[in-house]
């Protein structure tokens, strides 16, 4: 658990980066600090491992005042991940990851064995261990940065915009990987970002900061969306927050049967037909053909997003993005199980609201 008690940071030039911050980060959760640039997120984060010392106030990590601990010793017990990873260019990937165990006095052999394990944990082939950071992609470097932070198995992890320098696809991978890791490791993670979508996706609790280091709201993601504390939070979480709320709603949406056909099959197209491969996975839609036709790859209209039963947002998006207005539902193996309709999603939403499941 990390507690900020009336923490203020004023820099020498008079800038008040953080102002009387009171906040408790629960043990075993991912807490996200989000807010516009310059609002004091990094400063708040760096006060936890004493990369910056507060002007006044107290920070407790697991009940211990950080100011009573010698900074290097404190930092070895707190994982730290920064933007662009900050790997040591002159050390191999394996030695980068082994840094903290070695600093903590492990012997070289044990530290390296542990480092190799960690590469696997963060989803990197251990063969990468022999490479140097310059020989990795940005996303791979970021994974190494996470592995390095986890090496000595610290209970607390501080992450400052760790995924902001990679492209959106890789970022999503890394986010999912972090969620998967956290499910296994159960660390206390403070994650800084200025991307509200990232905050809502990763955070169990989200602290919205506003300029001057003021805490505007500290709440669960769905609460930020459904009940923003003020106009600042409302505008920061964005216009389509009603739509985003659906991310946190899980309700049954009726799944309808759908006409499917395989490539090369001869069929008579009546209305929209879903074309699938041998494993029954969706390939695209077919329509607007008169009489009997042979299903060819060229005639397919590519489909929208797929709904895997996750949340109402996924169901609605699948329906809205599909050329047939039918959202394709898939099972864990990616095989088609039916389709959903936007109307049904809206009705499911109305039902959930009536049942009091939608937070106000």
């Amino acid at each position, binding site marked *: 658990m990390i507690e900020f008690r009336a923490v203020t940071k004023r820099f020498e030039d008079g800038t008040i980066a953080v102002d009387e911050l009171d906040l408790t980060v629960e043990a075993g959760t991912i807490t996200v600090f989000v807010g516009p640039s310059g609002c004091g997120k990094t400063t708040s984060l760096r006060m936890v*491992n004493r*990369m910056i010392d507060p002007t006044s106030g107290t920070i407790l990590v697991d009940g211990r005042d950080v100011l009573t601990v010698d*900074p*290097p*010793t*404190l*930092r*070895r017990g707190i994982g*730290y991940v*920064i*933007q*662009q*990873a*900050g*790997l*040591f*260019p*002159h*050390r*191999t990937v394996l030695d980068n990851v082994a*840094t*903290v165990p070695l*600093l*903590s006095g492990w012997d070289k052999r044990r530290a390296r064995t542990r480092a190799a394990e960690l590469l696997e944990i963060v989803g990197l082939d251990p063969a990468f261990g*022999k*490479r*140097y*950071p*310059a*020989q990795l992609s940005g996303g791979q470097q970021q994974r190494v*940065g996470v592995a*390095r*932070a986890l090496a000595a198995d610290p209970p607390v992890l501080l992450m400052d915009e760790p995924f902001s320098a990679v492209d959106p696809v890789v970022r999503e991978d890394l986010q999912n990987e972090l969620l998967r890791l956290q499910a296994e490791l159960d660390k206390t993670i403070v994650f800084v970002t200025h991307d509200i979508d990232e905050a809502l996706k990763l955070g169990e609790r989200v602290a919205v900061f506003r300029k001057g280091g003021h805490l505007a709201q500290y709440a669960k993601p769905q609460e930020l969306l459904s009940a923003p504390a003020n106009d600042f939070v409302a505008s920061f979480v964005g216009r389509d927050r009603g739509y985003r709320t659906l991310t946190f709603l899980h309700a049954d949406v009726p799944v309808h049967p759908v006409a499917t056909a395989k490539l090369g099959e001869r069929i008579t197209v009546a209305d929209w037909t879903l074309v699938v491969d041998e494993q029954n996975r969706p390939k695209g839609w077919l329509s607007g053909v008169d009489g009997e036709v042979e299903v060819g790859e060229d005639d397919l209209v590519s489909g929208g997003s797929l709904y895997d039963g996750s949340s109402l947002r996924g169901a609605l998006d699948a329906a809205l993005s599909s050329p047939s207005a039918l959202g394709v539902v898939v099972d864990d193996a990616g095989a088609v199980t039916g389709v959903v309709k936007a109307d049904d999603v809206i009705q499911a939403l109305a039902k959930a609201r009536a049942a009091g499941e939608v937070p106000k």
Partner: protein
Amino acid sequence: MGAWLFDPAHWSGPTGIPVRLLEHLGYTLLTLLIAAVIAIPLGAFVGHTGRGGFAIVGLSNALRALPTTAVLILVVLWAGLGDFPVYVALVLLAVPPIMAGTYAGVRAVDPMAVDAARGVGMRESGVLLNVEIPNALPLIYGGFRGAALQVVATATIAAYTGAGGLGRFVFDGLALQEFGQMLAGAVLVALLAVLVDLGFAGLQRLTVSPGLRPAGTGGKR
């Protein structure tokens, strides 16, 4: 020159080419060692703390502006003939490039890596010794090799104060009007400079992390 250089008589005895070569190499290496011991810690410390950078640059420039022969003569007048004035003059020549290279090298280390070094719990000495210096090595070597070339060339003036080295051939040749000997001395100096530089290039290859080589050439071996 060829006749003088390849005369076997000049390749033996206490005033022969091998002895003079070794003397010259001795001046060079000891000078570089002393200069490195002074310049690397200074440059690294100032680069690490970021304080006094202007002083380092000013000092380097002032030292560079000193004419080496003038320094030599002054020290001879003060301390007499021998090796001592030679070392003073040569060390003053070698310090600025090594110090500037070290300072620039440490300053140029990726600030993210330095921040991360502190963030994972290295002490300041560890940040400097285990992250900043290893990453600064290419630039430190740059300054050092530049200094080495200057020192090899300039160590010729040792002969001026009655000491040894390849400069003997140049100055004796001049005194005796033996241009073959002078030229041979000069050629030997140039040759030694190339060899010394090759030696340090090899040392650099052995001691600089492959991770710091320019992209495309480094790493997997």
